[in-house]
């Protein structure tokens, strides 16, 4: 299924990175001066000449004549002086050969031109190349205002005349008169009047001023078949004459082809550039006038060319490791993602491009055109899901985890102990209790002590991963779970500890009144045991970038506990993502780590986070980092808390389970369910194996499941020489292998565990799971 083109069309104009720079939009000939400067700076004269030949008429003659109006519009002129583009052109044409002329075969069409000024020569040049027969009628020497121009080398002028001769352009001296005009008009398809030749005036041809007036688009006069050079107020400029000749040639060519010369003439005018270019951090570098302005040297031209910035936006790319990694910018990435999804056949090589964006929204805050790349990527993911080509492996782990947390066996709600109703519902989310169980419990008791009317407790995941993965059915299921817990609490105000939960609630559960934990805590007394430490750089989570109240509350809380802070430039509205957002780290772990590293590059101070995923990810990349609850409800001194390692995947899952069982027992006197046979399997995992399991995303519980099965069924292979066994099981869409030895005490030494998604013969197991069933995944490892 192709992606709807409107999504791309809506996004496209926001990113201006591929808009032409001011030098080009303000050049009447639209020369790619940025490209020219780039090549000249590197001394690539031959390539530079190709640009000149492509845009400038008369084989380089322009270089000696153009007044360089681009210089005034050049972004450099805001710093010092605009780049002297004509100087680059002059050196290039003087030191290179023009491309060979390859006129089209004769068309049999005749065009008459009056006046031999620059516009007439340009027109003759352009139409001569197309094979039309051009005759230039003139009085006195050809060249108009060119005659006697000090900067024009005689050699260049002679060459131009030779070139025109090769294009079969005929020069004919006449006395300008109405009769001469009538005759030319009768003998040709079109007539052009080059009034930039000072020898030619409308009166000489018997035309009134009104009759010589032209349409600014086509340069057609009101007289049939007659075009003319427009009159410009002010002193004449060669560049306008060149542009007029080019424009009139375009009109005549259209007329000869039976196409309207008035419509669809895009970007021939000069216009302001839409390209944004920041001048911050660009040093002043004044232009050095060449020793001889008419014969500049290559070195002088190269130095001038190196002054070109060159203009480009890339403001968002400078801050986003995702865009940097894929060597792209939003407009380009969007097209690639769009084409990838719309591919009917073959490999969708850019799936990973759509899955690696953190949907963090920083680019939108930075972009001068507010291009919302994260939102575009999210829409693309939705289309991938609808089109059934979203690869499952990217998000499956996170979704399985989420679905388990929200299963009826795991998620729960209880009123505050001893109460039947709740005025509030504390919803710490899925990760905080898993990583910071003691502080979660403490803050809950703090809330109970200071809030009136009872504070219920709910353990669940909001469902943000389903939304990031763009799975609509799964999102709905998660929303229903959360709504159900809230309903059993009596629909109270919900206190959220996680910024991503807050964004999710706002989008998917707008009927639920919510408040962030930080806003609530800021209004309560300082907790008795709160501790502060050395200066910490504060890291706002990207999900809170638009929540100024919470940002302020967090700073207020830090002040209340006397914790000194360092503010980073990229914070608040410009908060950086830790890489967890949009499940970027799930789909692309290496890139996910780079997000966190980019943040660490902003400061060498230890960090203070108030999202537990941020905290753990920043810590994992090596920086001491505390969570605000570590300071407000310390279980250990701040310096130690900052060093606490980030929990691994299994630690998280087991920590969450322990938190749940402890809390239910402690506050509500509920005995935890007896450990299952599977949970009682004791496994010994050496550190280096544990690290491999983390990258392979294999949980200790996955290993226990395989071993339990092997207990009943027996392992599949054994190695009598070493006593090792190899058990395999496919409990879901993944086949797990565990190589182990049974110890005398009944525990298992794990030598390795690994997995694959392909189905190979003979491995027992159901091969499907709740998420896949809900989302319609094919048990063979299909997509949804």
């Amino acid at each position, binding site marked *: 299924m192709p992606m709807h083109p409107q999504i791309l069309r809506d996004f496209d104009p926001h990113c201006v990175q591929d808009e032409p720079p001011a030098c080009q939009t303000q050049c009447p000939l639209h020369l790619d001066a940025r490209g020219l400067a780039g090549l000249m700076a590197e001394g690539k004269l031959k390539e530079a000449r190709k640009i000149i030949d492509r845009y400038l008429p008369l084989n380089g003659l322009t270089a000696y004549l153009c007044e360089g109006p681009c210089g005034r519009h050049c972004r450099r002129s805001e710093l010092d002086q605009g780049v002297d583009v004509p100087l680059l052109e002059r050196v290039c044409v003087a030191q290179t050969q023009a491309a060979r002329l390859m006129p089209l075969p004769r068309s049999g069409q005749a065009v008459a031109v009056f006046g031999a000024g620059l516009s007439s020569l340009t027109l003759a040049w352009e139409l001569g190349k197309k094979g039309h027969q051009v005759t230039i009628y003139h009085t006195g020497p050809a060249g108009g205002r060119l005659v006697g121009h000090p900067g024009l080398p005689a050699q260049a002028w002679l060459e131009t005349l030779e070139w025109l001769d090769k294009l079969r352009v005929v020069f004919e001296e006449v006395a300008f008169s109405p009769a001469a005009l009538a005759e030319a008009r009768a003998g040709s398809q079109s007539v052009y009047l080059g009034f930039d030749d000072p020898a030619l005036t409308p009166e000489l041809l018997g035309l009134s001023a009104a009759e010589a007036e032209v349409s600014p688009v086509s340069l057609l006069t009101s007289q049939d078949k007659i075009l003319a050079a427009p009159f410009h107020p002010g002193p004449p400029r060669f560049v306008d004459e060149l542009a007029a000749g080019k424009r009139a040639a375009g009109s005549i060519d259209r007329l000869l082809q039976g196409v309207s010369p008035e419509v669809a003439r895009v970007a021939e005018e000069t216009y302001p550039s839409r390209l944004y270019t920041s001048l911050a951090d660009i040093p002043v570098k004044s232009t050095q006038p060449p020793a001889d302005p008419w014969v500049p040297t290559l070195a002088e031209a190269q130095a001038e060319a190196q002054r070109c910035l060159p203009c480009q936006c890339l403001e968002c790319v400078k801050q986003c490791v995702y865009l940097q990694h894929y060597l792209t910018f939003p407009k380009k990435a969007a097209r690639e993602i769009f084409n990838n999804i719309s591919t009917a056949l073959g490999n969708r090589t850019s799936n990973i491009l759509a899955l690696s964006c953190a949907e963090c929204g920083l680019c939108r805050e930075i972009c001068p055109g507010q291009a919302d790349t994260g939102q575009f990527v999210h829409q693309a993911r939705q289309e991938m899901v609808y089109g059934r080509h979203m690869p499952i492996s990217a998000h499956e782990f996170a979704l399985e985890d989420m679905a388990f947390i929200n299963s009826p066996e795991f998620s729960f709600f209880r009123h505050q102990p001893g109460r039947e109703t709740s005025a509030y519902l504390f919803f710490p989310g899925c990760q905080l209790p898993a990583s910071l169980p003691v502080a979660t419990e403490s803050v809950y008791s703090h809330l109970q002590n200071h809030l009136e009317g009872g504070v219920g407790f709910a353990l669940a995941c909001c469902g943000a991963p389903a939304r990031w993965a763009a799975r609509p059915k799964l999102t709905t299921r998660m929303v229903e779970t959360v709504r159900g817990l809230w309903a059993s609490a009596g629909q109270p105000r919900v206190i959220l500890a996680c910024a991503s939960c807050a964004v999710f609630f706002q989008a998917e559960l707008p009927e639920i009144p919510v408040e962030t934990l930080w806003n609530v805590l800021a209004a309560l007394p300082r907790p008795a045991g709160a501790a502060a430490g050395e200066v910490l750089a504060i890291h706002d989570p990207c999900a809170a970038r638009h929540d100024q109240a919470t940002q302020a509350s967090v700073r207020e809380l830090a002040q209340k506990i006397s914790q000194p802070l360092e503010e980073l430039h990229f914070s608040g509205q410009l908060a950086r993502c830790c890489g967890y957002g949009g499940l970027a780290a799930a789909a692309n772990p290496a890139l996910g780590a780079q997000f966190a590293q980019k943040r660490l590059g902003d400061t060498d101070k230890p960090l203070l986070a108030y999202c537990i995923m941020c905290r753990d990810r920043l810590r994992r990349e090596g920086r001491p980092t505390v969570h605000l609850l570590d300071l407000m409800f310390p279980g250990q001194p701040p310096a130690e808390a900052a060093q606490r390692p980030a929990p691994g995947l299994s630690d998280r899952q087991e920590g969450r389970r322990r938190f749940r069982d402890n809390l239910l027992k402690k506050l509500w006197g509920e005995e935890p369910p007896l450990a299952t046979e599977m949970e009682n399997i004791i496994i010994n995992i050496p550190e280096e194996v544990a690290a491999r399991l983390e990258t392979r995303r294999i949980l200790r519980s996955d290993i226990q499941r395989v071993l339990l099965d092997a207990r009943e069924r027996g392992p*599949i292979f054994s190695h009598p020489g070493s006593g090792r066994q190899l058990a395999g099981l496919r409990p879901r869409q993944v086949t797990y292998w565990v190589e182990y030895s049974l110890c005398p005490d009944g525990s298992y030494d794990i030598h390795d565990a690994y997995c*694959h998604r392909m189905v190979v013969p003979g491995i027992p197991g159901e091969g499907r799971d709740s998420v896949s069933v809900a989302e319609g995944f094919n048990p063979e490892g299909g997509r949804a």
Partner: protein
Amino acid sequence: MTLATNQLPEIDVEGWVCRKCGQPLKVSLVAVTYMGSSFEVELPGCPNCGFTFIPPVLADGKMLEVEKMLEDK
């Protein structure tokens, strides 16, 4: 889909036997499926019981690579 044996890493099955029947492992052509694609690959396994033996180098290497390729198709 090709998954030529010559692209597969050297698989060391030395000393491994089928736990059920005690047979040493033998390489044979087996059908592997993923994402609706099915192809034949030479893999070690028990010639009697039909179990396939997958070592970690294969799971982390070639298999992962092909899985990713098929997911992108």
